[in-house]
């Protein structure tokens, strides 16, 4: 977009450092990474290039819920992205800790730093992750910091409170890291990567080299290439002994002793939680995942805990294959401040403080992909705000990013929010291959992709339309090609020669739409039902309490939520269809008055 941007970080060397497991993608998140790529984000290419293992999840459950996932080289991922930022035009990176915001009236105009250097800007985006008053727990041991070995941003919270922004505590955790040398892999089950990896980025529409591993440029040499072995993960499980150790030490766990106030995610329970809440489950699966090619550090997926270090050691060593394991870093839980995302517009701008945007874990989410998606949206909208151009509003039926932002700003969250495919009512439209096609209007409107790539996407879209039409109207034996494809359950259906020669991106999308035609049409009908009210914009300054006929409790909720469209208003809990009808009537009577 070409806006002059400053990136302030407490530590340049930890840009894009993955606090937890260095895995990108997976359920719903894999689709999000492709959406990020479709909107010009860096995450997809960065993951492709630095991945050490690729797997496509859910191959048997249907095309819409198939998700690419990659295990990345932690350091390579981080350094490549740092280098990408260094090469980015109009971006300046500077190392300093932000200690407070500078306000003027109800607007933000810049920030103070620990170096006593102030920075002034037209818009400010806050992405403090787990660092706001970050507090780490290992049993009774407490350390300040947003991540092991990192600092804690302590004074910044006061700035938010001063501006009337409500903060609350959340909690997350991470398992121990082990030395690979000390692991007995012979007692574990190997999990290999896919022979034909599914990449995150859309290479078929990029004007540059279509596949990075074919023409390795200097910058990309870090990544996986054909002929290079992918690295395996390993599966093992807890033993009865593990359960005994955990149970008899529960009182020492920071979580169970009441040390931690923050709310943790239900989908990411600590090992304590697992043995307490699912007492009848004899054992729990564990994955050993390599942190990189040039390190022997392993991540123990499934063993997140806040037990004291000595108990952690006993617990780890009770696992088959880990009898002699050496811990490189302990597991810990971290508590941090987050700002309720219902305090934001769908542009991710604060309702309270103009020009102040929030993105990432500070909004109550958890996960790299969720954070990256929000960062992209906040960035685009900060520029639009500054220039007075229309914001980028992603809608629920356009992709997971639309669902993510609508859920956050409309419903809020009480636990670290992670995307699931089941959160998307139009999930069937979100097959990962269609991300570019779904989001192209946004990329176009906000200049997020090069003109050449836009042209390529449009050409791809035309090809797809052409082939669907062709298959629906041309006959083979027993009806049209399309009927034939729908009858054949598997990939067995015979297809026209010219179609087979099409790129696999086009072919897959065409076959998907033909096969799922009935279901997709139903989704479209449901979307059309809301199209009318989706178009009606609501002003944030609308005085709901003065609208006659509106129930008072609805008016209060609307005044608090400040929805941007009538459709968003209709999703606020407690606002009923009659309220929406009344709003519609009163809004249009205002319009008429204005005429």
């Amino acid at each position, binding site marked *: 977009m070409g806006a002059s941007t400053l990136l302030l970080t407490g530590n340049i060397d930890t840009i894009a450092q993955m606090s937890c*497991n260095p895995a990108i993608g*997976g*359920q*719903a998140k894999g689709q999000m990474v492709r959406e990020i790529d479709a909107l010009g984000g860096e995450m997809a290419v960065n993951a492709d290039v630095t991945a050490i293992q690729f797997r496509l*999840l*859910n191959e*048997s*459950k*249907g*095309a*819409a*819920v198939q998700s690419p996932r990659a295990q990345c080289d932690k350091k390579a991922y981080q350094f490549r992205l740092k280098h990408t930022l260094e090469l980015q035009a109009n971006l300046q990176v500077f190392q300093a800790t932000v200690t407070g915001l500078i306000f003027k009236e109800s607007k933000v105009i810049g920030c103070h730093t620990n170096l006593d250097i102030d920075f002034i800007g037209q818009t400010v985006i806050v992405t403090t992750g787990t660092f706001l008053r970050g507090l780490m727990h290992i049993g009774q041991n407490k350390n300040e910091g947003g991540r092991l070995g990192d600092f804690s941003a302590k004074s910044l919270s006061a700035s938010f409170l001063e501006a009337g922004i409500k903060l609350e505590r959340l909690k997350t955790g991470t*398992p121990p890291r082990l030395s690979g040398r000390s692991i007995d892999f012979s007692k574990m089950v190997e999990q290999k990567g896919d022979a034909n990896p599914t990449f995150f980025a859309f290479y078929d529409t990029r004007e540059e080299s279509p596949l990075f591993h074919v023409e390795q440029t200097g910058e990309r040499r870090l990544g996986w290439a054909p002929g290079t072995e992918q690295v395996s993960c390993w599966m093992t499980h807890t033993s009865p002994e593990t359960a005994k150790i955990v149970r008899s030490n529960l009182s020492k766990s920071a979580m169970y002793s009441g040390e931690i106030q923050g709310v943790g*995610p*239900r*989908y*990411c*329970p600590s090992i304590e939680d*697992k043995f307490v*809440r699912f007492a009848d*489950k004899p054992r*729990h*699966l564990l*994955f050993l995942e390599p942190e990189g090619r040039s390190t022997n550090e392993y991540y123990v997926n*499934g063993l*997140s805990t806040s037990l004291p270090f000595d108990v952690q050691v006993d617990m780890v060593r009770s696992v088959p294959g880990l009898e002699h394991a050496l811990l490189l870093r302990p597991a810990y839980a971290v508590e941090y401040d987050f700002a309720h995302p219902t305090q934001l517009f769908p542009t991710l701008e604060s309702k309270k403080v103009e020009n102040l945007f929030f993105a990432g874990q500070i909004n109550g989410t958890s996960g790299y992909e969720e954070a990256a998606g929000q960062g992209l949206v906040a960035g685009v909208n900060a520029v639009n705000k500054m220039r007075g151009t229309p914001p980028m509003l992603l809608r629920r039926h356009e992709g997971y990013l639309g669902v993510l932002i609508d859920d956050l700003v409309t419903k809020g969250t009480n636990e670290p929010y992670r995307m*699931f495919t*089941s*959160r998307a*009512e139009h*999930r*069937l439209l979100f097959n990962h291959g269609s991300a570019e096609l779904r989001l192209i209007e946004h990329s176009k409107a906000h200049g997020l992709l090069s003109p050449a790539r836009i042209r390529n996407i449009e050409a791809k879209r035309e090809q797809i339309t052409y082939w669907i039409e062709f298959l629906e109207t041309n006959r083979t034996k027993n009806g049209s090609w399309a009927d034939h494809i729908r009858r054949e*359950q598997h990939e067995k259906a015979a297809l026209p020669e010219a179609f087979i020669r099409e790129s696999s991106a086009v072919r897959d999308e065409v076959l998907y739409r033909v096969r*799922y035609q009935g*279901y997709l049409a*139903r989704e479209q009908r449901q979307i*059309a*039902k809301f*199209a*009318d009210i989706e*178009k009606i914009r609501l002003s944030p300054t609308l005085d709901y309490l003065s*609208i*006659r*006929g*509106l*129930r008072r409790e609805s008016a209060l909720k609307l005044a608090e939520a400040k929805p941007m469209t009538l459709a968003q208003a209709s999703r606020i*809990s407690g606002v*009923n*269809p*009659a309220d929406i*009808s*009344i709003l*519609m*009537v*009163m809004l*249009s*009577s205002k*319009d*008429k*008055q204005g005429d």
Partner: protein
Amino acid sequence: MPRFTDTIAALATARGTSAIALIRVSGPEAARVTGAIFGLVPPARRATHADYRDLAGATIDDALFTFFPAAGSYTGEDAVEISCHGNPFIVQKVLEDLFARGCRAAQPGEFTQRAFLNGRMDLSQAEAVADLIHARSDRALAAANQLLRGGLGRRIQDLTDRLLGILAQIEAQIDFPEEDLPAEDRESARKAITRLLADTNRLLATSHYGELLREGIRTVIVGAPNAGKSSLLNRLVGHERAIVSEEPGTTRDFIEERIMAGPHGLRLVDTAGLNPTPGAVEKLGVEKSHAQMAGADLILLVVELGAPLPDLPESAWSRFKPSRTLLVVNKCDLSRPQLDYSLPEGIPMVQVSAKTGLGIETLVEQMIIMAGQIQTIDSEDFTVINARHADALSHAMAGLNAAASQLAANGHSELVASDLRGTLAAYGEIVGRIDNEQMLDQLFAKFCIGK
């Protein structure tokens, strides 16, 4: 200015004793739907008489309809008004058919709202429109709540919980493929869906209000053998249906006939007779008669002129509640002395002759009054809500059916889930929107998820 893409339908007249019901349809599909129903291109602004045929091709009623092109209609969009008989059964059928054809149930005040938004009313009326929407929605809400407080709400809640359980299993497999979950059990999912389907169907079929509307008011004719019950039924129906015999106790199985009493649909049930000392064969029939009485909405107690009331055990008399019992003294063409009956106070008495038709009109009038009292649910909203519920339940069943066949045909889980979500939304239309969080709650409670 908003343009609406959907077509709405609702009953416009208040229900009750009116003989004619007016159903209004408005939106871009109005012309097409009307054409399909009546099998002709609807002439503009001219009341036309034609048979209302439903999607399956069956005639529901002979109706009068008028088509108004957008330019001259109340709402400012294509609209049609359909007048049919004011019988709730017919009204419900028509609404259900309109929904099946793609119309949507209008929200309270929505016609007026559209009229306003389409520029058919001036600004000064906007607030009046808002007030109207407000008032109507309150009334509709009250009616819906009343309905849901009863068994219906509880049963839908139970269905919803079970569905959430099934869905949570499937979603867990989709969203957490790398977890150590119990293996996907499609067969038990399919069985659970089949049970849900049966129960949803039963709910649709047995919900009492639905039955009143669909099946009519159950009117059971009882009395001593030979009192003239079968003759009375025949007289009310207008043709020979029951076997009339001079030998007492001929009617052993029940004969049912549907008749219209004014706006109300009645289901007449003829019984064997209340004989305290029956022979072996009749005994069964008599027991059945008592059972029929227990399930009756309205009882016609028939006695022969000059004959005493049937000799019944004390307990049986408690069934004859004044609000739902009519004493019919038959054979008034004969010259016999009239006896005095000691019946619970308030039970109306009508004298008729099934043979000559004497007094039958008075009897029907009395039945209309009592039927009206039985169907106290006679506000406009009630029918709409009820038709909407039936519509929602049949959508729920469609989703369950589709999911079951996907499972049987080895279809993808994401499609099964999509169908089940359709069902969840349909239940939600009755008990209120069901948030995805509820599914996630079940999912995380049931499975140990997370690494």
